[in-house]
């Protein structure tokens, strides 16, 4: 078994003008998805990220503070899962709730170093 990270990229909820009703429905879907992974025993961790960004760039270590409104896409969170291969994670990612909002799931394999 290998470890993979599913990284969620897309617009921030705050910038989409979702209604309380929609937010509740979306939350329900996220909740159900998390539970499904938990039950299947594949979930190894994960977090949601706040939309505040501090960027440090270049040799001068130039610092900029950004909000989600200033960037088109933002990493909103990630899940770490255990799976056989990319295809298996792709299956898991089918239930990601925010495709309809233009969201993206990027699947990356966690690198393992030889001992």
């Amino acid at each position, binding site marked *: 078994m290998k470890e993979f990270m599913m990284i969620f990229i897309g617009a921030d909820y*705050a910038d989409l003008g979702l*209604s309380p*009703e*929609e937010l*509740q429905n979306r*939350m329900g879907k996220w*909740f159900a998805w*998390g539970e499904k992974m938990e039950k299947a025993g594949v979930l190894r961790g994960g977090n*949601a990220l706040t939309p505040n960004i501090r960027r440090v760039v270049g040799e001068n270590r130039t610092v900029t503070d950004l909000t989600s409104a200033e960037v088109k896409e933002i990493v909103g969170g990630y899940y770490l899962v255990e799976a056989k291969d990319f295809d298996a994670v792709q299956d898991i990612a089918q239930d990601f709730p925010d495709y309809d909002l233009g969201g993206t799931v990027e699947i990356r394999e966690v690198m393992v170093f030889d001992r």
Partner: protein
Amino acid sequence: METKLIDHLFRHHSGKMVSVLTRIFGLAHLEIIEDAVQDTFIKASITWRKQLPDTPEAWLTQAAKNRVLDLFRKLKTEKKHLPNLNQGKNAIAINELFLDSEIEDAQLRMIFTACHPKLDPRDRISFALKTVSGFSSKEIASALLTKEDTIKKRLSRARKVIQQSQLKFSIPTGKALPHRLESAMEVLYLIFNEGFHSNKKERLIRKELCGEAMRLCQILLKNEYTRTPESYALFALMCFHSARLDSKTNTENEILDLKHQDRKLWHFPLVELGNTMMNKAVETNVFSCYHYEAAIAAEHFRASNFDHTNWDKILYWYQCLNALQPMPTHLLTMAVVCMQNGDHEKAKTYLDQLEPKDFVQRVYLYYGALADYHNATKNFHEAIDNIDLALNTVTNALEKEYLEKKKLALLLK
């Protein structure tokens, strides 16, 4: 873990939070308040993904209290006039504003604000759905079959009027109350009708509008000053209509008239609730339009099937209604009722009082009734002519289908 949130918890809490916070900070800060409340739900929706709190409602109320402090800090930097929260007494007073009874009081104030006569009648519905019911402008647009931009314009116009006229966030008292209550009930009635008569494919949004109107009407009934025979009658009417919401269309979403509705689908607990409300509504002898409309709806429930309908009684209620509030649609309905009763001569006397221009967009209803009249009196040619006129003017796809079926039946005669 099997935790499930109450349906519409967020939506309903949003209305409560906006109302209570407005009571504390005033209508002048409505926009900032709405943003802050929205932010709470975004946070909740993300932090609750993994684990729901044990008592979601308490969590949301606490979040609303926290927003009081946030807003206070935020507005303080803008040096606006604010309540003084630092003193112990005020802090306690604010805690008390989050008691259930006070939340209801705040919501009632918001209903009266949304239904204020200073607001354009079209803006009232949108504004009520937004602030009291927690709908987004997109949801309002979809419920009212309008563009989202239009709704946004209506909302900002309503906000502007509220600021400019410096409306008070209060429950009207004394002489002002009856008039203001009438305006509030009218808005609730319109919201309900939007849900009940809309022919939108998604039944869900229709039901939600009806449900919201009923929830808001219940808020009126909980307050001793707004609990009147009229508001009871309005709630009874909503109960009766909602009871047959599911039977109005079949599984293919075709409209079914009363004759073809499956009466087994009627939801009788709602009918009973309506009856209870109606008994309270008739404790005085003053009857409103809502009383008569509810009486008509109730009469349909008394009949176990369409043929047992007491049309004389229904005609009588319509006559009362039309005397109180003369409307071409009432006359048209009275004509239809007479035809049900086989009294075509009387039907004609009502139809003769009407002209196509009385009905504007709904003129197809008039032609449809004329077609029925000619069909019943065996003037099939004229019946078909009128069905064609109806078909030319109908815009709604479902009603069009209904008319086409009727035409086909006529052509086969």
